[in-house]
Every structure is written in structure tokens, then in C-alpha cells.
């Protein structure tokens, strides 16, 4: 077998080595704290030399896992749907420092800092990939229900909920044991999920219904369905294959007491009392609201209304819409930062971010993006926003304080679909 050896320096201490035709890549990363991490970009490592290399690095990693984990906050994980991998970006240098091969069409990434594991949901092969972040190697690949898309890690970091959207089920997975514990049926196109603060309950948003299902995690059963609005009205011979948009997400307040659930077909945002599992109030918003995004200080919920291209700002204290601002086409994400003075609303229809001044509750401008934005994540200090650009295979970097685009990171992979930082305000489409 012909081998093509290539070495490139990516950044301080990092190497990227490949055996071209055999598609074996081994990568060594030296993290600033001194920990070594091994990255096997492709699934197997067959050559003797590479195996020895890997063994040596693995030993080094095993000696310093804590140092590696303490730096997790500095890394952005970007799932690439087309190239079936996850790019790891160092936020200090804005360089791609690793790529991890996962299953087909990775939709979302979640990271358990406690267990040092990263998970991807792979919608095309009905699996999740669990990656050990000490070695960046696959710890397990689990086959779940049809089209696992959205994933959520429990507050304790040990249970993963996976919505199998095409099967109408949710898988509950032990991240300690790398196995599926229970599979809950009776859901309707399960979309995003939210754990209660103690991890005992899971609120499942049904994209195909007008209610939120409440799952008892220990029992693996639905114990309630919280109605968000009236069943959809159709004047037709049948439903005509209409695109039905039920509930995308339940967005909790920081104290976990209330949840905000937008009902796309009802043009409304319901305020749920998560202790009593009842709808407290329904707030009229714009046409076809997407979902609520919370500011980190808990003051506002920001709701893009895609039907009329507006953005509703809801006060979480008065439970009223305090502003309705001009938006743009196909808004699929909102990120806040800069001491919660700024919100960026991502428009995949117009390739831009709309800048909202959260102190004045006005639109302060817009930032043109060099590709189609999918979702983004703000760094924990609120200073930088990273946005996956699916059409240009880049990740845009926005300075949240200056409200400007400061760069675009290339070479992340094909079809970047989101961005994720451990412990940050992560979300998915």
C-alpha cells in the first residue's frame, strides 16, 4: 500500500500527520496546560508506526487528564454534517486544532465536562458517537431509534437524552456506562429537550404536536402532557402534507421555575410553571414563532417569528412582550453577550446577524456573514460569538462588544451545522 506522509504545523505544538491513501490520520495536540491529547481523525489506525505513536501518546494523556479537562471551556466543537466529523477550535488562537470522525450526518454535539466525554447524534446512521475527550477516540457507538437529532445532557452530566425524531421516541443513555438505559415511546417528533434542575424530569418538545411531554427519567415514562395551545386548524380535505411546526423547545429561566415554549402553529409563547406542570399564561407573539432564547441574566426571552420576520422580546418579570423588532428571513438562532447588552439574531435566509441592543430594546444594526449561518455559541466571558456557516464551510467569529465580524475560520469541515462550548448557552436548530 502506497503511503503518503504529510506533516503540517497547525499551531504551537500541534501536528497533523496522515497516511494519505489509507486514510489514517493521527494527531497530537499539546494543550497550553501541558496535557497531551491524541486525536484519531479516522476510525482505525492499522499501521505499526501509527499504533506505537498512539500508544505513547495515550500513556501521556492518561497521566494528565485533569489538565486537559480544565481547558475544555476554551474549545469550540463544530459538527460537520457532510464530512461526518467534529472540528475542535481553540478559542485562544481561533485555529482548528483537531478533527474527530463520528457517524454519518452529525447533527448536534454535547459535552459532559464531568465525565470528559463528547457526544454527537448522527442522523443518517441512527447512532450516537461517544468520544473520550482525554484521547479524542471513540469510546462507544450506540445504535438508537430512527434519526437521532437533538441531545441534552442532564445537570449531573451522566444521563444523555436523545430525541429519535423519526421514531417518536427518546433514548436515555448512561454516559458513565456508555449504554442505552431506557427508550421512551409516545412522543411526536421529539425535538429539543430540557431537564429539570435535579435531573429527574425531562421536558420533551413535540415538533408534531401542541403539547410538551413530561418524562419521569427514572421510570422512563411519560407522566404528563402540558398543553401549549389549541390543536391546529385545517380547512382542507386532509392535512395536505402541510409543514407542521409544533414546539421546538422549552427554554427555562435560570432558576428552572418557569419554561417558555413557543407554539409555531399558534403564534403564541406559553409560560409554563415547571413545578406544577401547568401553563400559567399565553403571550401573543408574531407569526410562526421559532423558539425562545434566554438572555444569560434571565431578564428576557427573545423569540424570532419567522412568518412575519419579526423578533419578540419578552420580559421574564412582567411576562409581557416589551418589544417587537424587525427581523429577517429564516432566523434559526439567537446569541447574547457583552454583559448581556447585545443579542445577535442569526438569519440563514439573508446570511446575516441582526444586532439587538438589549438595553434600548432596539435594532442596532446588522452584520453581513460570508456564508449561511446555522447556529452559534458565545464564549463563557460573553466576548466572542462563533457561528457555523454551512454554505462556506467556515466558522464566523464576531466580537460581541464591538459588534463586528472579526474573522472566519476555514478548514473546519464540510457542512458545519452548529457550534458548542462546554458549559455555555448551547442550542441547536
Amino acid at each position, binding site marked *: 500500500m502506497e503511503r503518503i506522509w504529510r506533516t503540517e504545523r497547525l499551531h504551537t505544538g500541534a501536528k497533523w500527520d496522515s497516511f494519505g491513501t489509507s486514510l489514517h490520520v493521527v494527531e497530537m495536540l499539546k494543550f497550553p496546560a501541558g496535557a497531551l491529547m491524541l486525536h484519531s481523525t479516522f476510525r482505525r489506525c492499522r499501521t505499526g508506526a501509527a499504533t506505537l505513536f498512539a500508544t505513547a501518546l495515550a500513556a501521556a494523556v492518561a497521566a494528565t487528564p485533569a489538565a486537559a479537562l480544565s481547558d475544555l471551556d476554551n474549545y469550540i466543537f463544530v459538527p460537520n454534517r457532510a464530512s461526518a466529523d467534529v472540528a475542535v477550535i481553540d478559542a485562544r488562537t481561533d485555529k482548528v486544532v483537531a478533527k474527530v470522525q463520528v457517524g454519518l450526518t452529525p447533527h448536534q454535539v454535547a459535552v459532559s465536562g464531568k465525565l470528559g466525554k463528547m457526544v454527537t447524534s448522527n442522523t443518517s446512521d441512527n447512532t450516537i458517537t461517544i468520544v473520550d475527550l482525554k484521547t479524542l477516540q471513540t469510546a462507544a457507538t450506540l445504535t438508537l431509534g430512527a434519526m437521532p437529532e437533538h441531545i441534552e445532557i442532564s445537570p449531573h452530566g451522566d444521563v444523555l437524552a436523545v430525541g429519535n425524531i423519526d421514531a*417518536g421516541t427518546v433514548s436515555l443513555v448512561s454516559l458513565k456506562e456508555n449504554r442505552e438505559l431506557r427508550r421512551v415511546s409516545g412522543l411526536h417528533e421529539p425535538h429539543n429537550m430540557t431537564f429539570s434542575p435535579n435531573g429527574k424530569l425531562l421536558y420533551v418538545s413535540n*415538533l408534531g404536536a401542541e403539547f410538551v411531554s413530561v418524562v419521569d427519567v427514572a421510570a422512563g415514562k411519560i407522566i404528563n402532557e402540558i398543553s401549549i395551545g389549541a390543536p391546529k386548524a*385545517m380547512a382542507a380535505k386532509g392535512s395536505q402534507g402541510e409543514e407542521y411546526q409544533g414546539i421546538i423547545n422549552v427554554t427555562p429561566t435560570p432558576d428552572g421555575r418557569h419554561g417558555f415554549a413557543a407554539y409555531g402553529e399558534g403564534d403564541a409563547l406559553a409560560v409554563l410553571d415547571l413545578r406544577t406542570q401547568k401553563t400559567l399564561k399565553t403571550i401573543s407573539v408574531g*407569526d410562526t414563532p421559532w423558539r425562545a432564547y434566554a438572555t444569560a441574566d434571565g431578564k428576557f426571552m427573545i423569540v424570532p417569528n419567522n412568518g412575519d420576520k419579526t423578533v419578540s422580546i419578552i420580559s421574564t418579570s412582567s411576562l409581557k412582550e416589551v418589544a417587537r423588532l424587525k427581523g429577517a428571513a429564516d432566523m434559526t438562532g439567537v446569541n447574547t453577550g457583552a454583559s448581556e447588552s447585545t443579542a445577535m439574531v442569526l438569519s440563514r435566509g439573508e446570511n446575516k446577524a441582526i444586532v439587538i441592543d438589549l438595553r434600548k430594546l432596539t435594532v442596532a444594526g446588522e452584520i453581513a456573514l460570508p456564508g449561511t449561518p446555522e447556529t452559534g455559541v458565545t464564549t463563557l466571558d460573553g466576548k466572542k460569538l462563533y457561528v457555523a456557516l454551512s454554505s462556506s464551510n467556515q466558522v464566523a467569529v464576531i466580537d460581541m462588544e464591538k459588534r463586528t465580524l472579526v474573522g472566519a475560520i476555514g478548514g473546519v469541515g464540510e457542512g458545519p451545522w452548529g457550534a458548542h462550548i462546554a458549559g455555555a448557552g448551547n442550542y441547536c436548530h
Partner: protein
Amino acid sequence: MRATTVTRLFIASCLAAYAVTPLSILGAADAFGLFLNRVVKLAPIDAAKVSKACNGDRLCAARLIVETLGPPAQLEAVTHPDTDSIRRVKSQSSISDFRAIGPSTYIMNLDRFGRKLTEEFQAHFRSASGISHLILDLRKNQGGDFDRMRRAAALLTGPVERAIELNGKPVDIPPPTQQLAVPRLTVLIGPRTASSAEILTVLLRKYADADIFGTRSVGKNYLYRMVPVTQDWRLLLPAEQIVVPGETLTGGVLPDGPIPKTLAHHLN
């Protein structure tokens, strides 16, 4: 006419049942009980009997409910759209054709009431250089989302208070995102034009002075409410009767005349 009378009686019985049925009829908060509670808000069913017969099986219950209620209640397979279309990555068009057939005269084939209908409408108007006569072809439109239909109507009529009644309760045509100026409007209907498309037709006749040509439409004048049963099945329960005051939907919308020969040869 007989069918319409039956439908009216059916809807009236639904409402009567709704008025007297306790919402927490089954008490127990299991998924099956929650499903039956949703149904009894919309239809006159004996929940205890259904519960006993089907023992927690929602699909069995749904079949029994449809069997008991009879048409027009129906059980429908859910055609799950590609979730990328929900995420607005993809979108199915509502307007299948838009073209000029003369100086500032355009034909628009509006076949469904999709989620991007308003945007499509506006985009086509922007692409045209002045429209003095719009011919809206609804002959293939079998209805759809009631709220999106109202928003489409708003583009051409502007806001109208109490334009429609649902079981006697007034419903407005909402303020449009942008009102489109059309000096002359013609609507084409046929034997496949149904439900939301029929309501749109009479709203445009009443509030936008549209001429209606073609043949009598289906005459479907009630709203279904969609009740999810399982991931793959849902109930369609007729819940509200639609009235446009001053217009007749019963038995189908009657056009002002047949499609003029001068127009017919331009049609697909």
C-alpha cells in the same frame, strides 16, 4: 344538501358534548388518558367505553372514535416532512407558476397554503413590473392551513374585522405584512377547489372585488382540528363551522361565469 345538514348536526353535537363533558374525565395522568381528554374537548365520545375497549392503545382508540363518529371524522397517516424544511433549510412552494400573459397581466397558480406563502407572494410581486390584472388560479387548491389562508387574503384585501365566523365566533383578516395593490383581480375555481381555497375565493370577491370564473367548487365549510394520536397517526375532528357573512359556501362556491375563452388557452 343532505350531507351538509348531517355535518351541521354533527358539529352541533360536538359542541353540545364539549359543553357538558368534564375535561378531566379520566383522571389518571397517563399518556392514554391525556389523549382521550384532548379528544373529548372536541368530539362527543364515550371516553370510558373507549378506554375499556382499547386498554391504553391510542391507535385502537382513534379507530374506534372514527368508527363511532363516522365521516367526516377521519384517521390520517402523518407524512413527516423533512425536518430540514421545519428548520427552514428547505421549503415546499405554494405557488407553482407565475407568468405574464399580457401587458401587466399575470397568472398565479396557488396550489397550497404553505409556510412561506406570504414571502412567495411578495417575491413574485417584486419580480413583476407592475401588475394591473392578477389571475389567481385556485383550481388545484384543495385547501390547507386556515391561518395562512387568512394571511394570504390580507395581502390583497388588507385587514378586515369580523370577516369570518367560526361557530358564530368572529375571526378577522389580520393586518398584512405588506398590502399588494392589484387594480383588477380574477379568481379561477373548479371542482377540486376546496376548503381554505373556497374561503379565500369568497373573501376576495367580497373585499377585493374579484371576479370568479370556472365551475362550482367542492363546498367544504368546516374546520378540522388535528389531534396527534401516535408519531405516525392523527385524528382529524370536524370542530368548527365556517361562515363568511353574506357569502354561500354550502354546496360549493358558485362562480360568476365560465372561464372566458380568451383566458382559457393561457391556462395549464
